[in-house]
């Protein structure tokens, strides 16, 4: 009797989670995977096969765009780490207790507006007739209007700005748990600032660094609006090709294939990153 009620409550507890996983993650992915294996042979006629994957491999534009997306996402992740770490360290360790919440909130503000509005904000700032170009002319630094949009650098800046928060949050929460005595012990035993940073702070923050990097990388690789709007004519991004396959080319089979490939490839990059840095997924969630 008792074990029956125990079982029942376990089932009741797990059901929403299981439904969530099955309905919103496994089923759609399985559906996408299934569609990606459909070959179109004529109107309303399909066969099972790997043609869509072969097409991907046979068309350099596709895999070049995937590689470019991955490479730029890695760059964005690294920059977000370089920028986010000092900010997180300041919030967690240096700022006064009372001001922490405020600083954290400041970091959250960009999330209060949509991607689209943020991207247009950058456009207003950076366009040829925009604020920065105008200010530089007014100051006499440049003689003619300068176009700051529509290049890779702008895309990277815009993406870093969008994702850096997702680097800061996990870093703050790990660094927050670090006893200051560890730092003092590090100095006391003869470590220089650099040694303490490299051998104590970074290893301690590693779970936060790893999870922050995974989140920012995945978000960046999967972003759509920012690279399109800020990159202009040279902004090839893999998600845009997925959109094009689905929407403008009516080619759901290829679109699904691209979706599967993006998931596999980003997972591979994350796996490779973990291997290269000697970390495991477990260290990011299970901290001793």
């Amino acid at each position, binding site marked *: 009797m008792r074990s029956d009620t125990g079982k029942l409550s376990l089932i009741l507890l797990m059901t929403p989670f299981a439904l969530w996983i099955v309905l919103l993650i496994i089923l759609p992915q399985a559906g996408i995977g299934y569609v990606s294996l459909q070959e179109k042979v004529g*109107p309303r006629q399909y066969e099972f096969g790997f043609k869509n994957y072969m097409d991907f491999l046979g068309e350099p534009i596709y895999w070049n765009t995937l590689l470019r997306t991955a490479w730029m996402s890695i760059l964005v992740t690294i920059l977000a780490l370089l920028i986010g770490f000092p900010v997180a360290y300041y919030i967690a360790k240096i700022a006064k207790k009372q001001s922490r919440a405020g600083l954290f909130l400041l970091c959250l503000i960009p999330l209060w507006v949509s991607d689209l509005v943020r991207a247009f904000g950058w456009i207003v700032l950076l366009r*040829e007739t925009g604020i920065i170009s105008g200010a530089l002319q007014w100051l006499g630094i440049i003689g003619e209007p300068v176009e700051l949009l529509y290049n890779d650098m702008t895309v990277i800046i815009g993406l870093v700005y969008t994702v850096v928060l997702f680097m800061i949050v996990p870093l703050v929460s790990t660094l927050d748990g670090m006893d200051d005595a560890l730092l003092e012990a590090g100095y006391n035993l003869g470590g220089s600032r650099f040694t303490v940073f490299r051998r104590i702070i970074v290893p301690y923050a590693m779970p936060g660094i790893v999870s922050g990097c995974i989140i920012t990388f995945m978000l960046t690789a999967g972003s759509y609006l920012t690279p399109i709007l800020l990159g202009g*004519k040279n902004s090839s991004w893999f998600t845009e090709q997925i959109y*094009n396959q689905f929407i*403008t*080319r*009516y*080619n759901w089979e290829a679109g699904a294939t691209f979706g599967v490939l993006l998931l596999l490839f980003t997972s591979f990059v994350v796996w490779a990153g973990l291997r290269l840095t000697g970390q495991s997924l477990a260290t990011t969630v299970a901290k001793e």
Partner: protein
Amino acid sequence: MKTSLKLMLAGTAMGLTAGSMASAETLRLLTWGSYAPDELIQKFEEEYPDIDVEVTFSNNEEMIAKLRATGGSGYDLAQPSHDRIYAAQLEYDIYKPLDLSQINTDAMSANLLDGVKANTTIDGEVYAVPHQWGTSGIMANIKEAPDASGWADLCDPAYQGKTSMRLRRTILLGTAFGMGMNPFELYADKDAYQDMLDKVTAKLIECKSNIKTYWSGGDDLSGLMLSGEVVLSETWDSTAYKLYNENPDIVFVPPETGALAWIDTFAIPKGGEADDAAYKWINFVLRPENVTIMSASTGAIAAVPNGIELLPDDKRSAVQAAFDQSDLDNLKFFANIPPGLEDMEGLALERIKAATE
């Protein structure tokens, strides 16, 4: 276990359908931004108090993708362009035949009606009737680019860094015309069409360094033109007319090879549940007094015999500034897109996008 699963699924399905069944008198309209002005909706609902109008704004590609995803249900009336019906119906079976006796076809401009019917008849059934038409061409700031006359001018080094275009099929077709080819005549021959696409792709890649950026919607195109960052661009005529009212230097220029004309139609999705209401809406918006309200919002010309005269004053003057009779005679109406063409064009567009200068 099996039965409970079935029960659950059935329950879910009932839950999903219950909402739509309860409001059978809702007209769900899938159309272009600005194609359902509030003023007209209010007027319509006053006239037919038992019909609620719900509007979803979209574009050609998304309309088809949405209807394809639902198997043609979820909407009661859609407005794709006339060249997007035939192949989509063959491939995805998303529309149902129209009952022409319910539509006041006499109000429509006869040549446009015949053209659309010819384009959208499958097995003797007509799937669409015309609503509004307009053109794609180029828009020039005549102070900066007084001599712009055709598609090829977008790639003229004289306007280095100051031109723009939308990276969609229109610019492929326009560029082909500008290079002296006629893509519509090549539709039937896929190899010839691919050959044409390759030439156009090469041209547009070469042209890439000349343009400032690709625009993606009327809003960013307007921003680029009004700020003066761009002086010459591919455009929809309606966008150009709107800008003409803000800056009379910005005019629509029908390319010398002919402006590309599109007709937005009425088509009823296969799963539409309010056909009567849909026919009422079609007849309602074609009434002369409503045509003016609609055109004021869309900037496009109604498919009625005196469509241009029924434009609001400002739009009419913009059209008259852009077109003379020879331009009107020279219009190139989009031909039906055979299945598979969009995929070829899509690859060409991706090649252009991915190319580095």
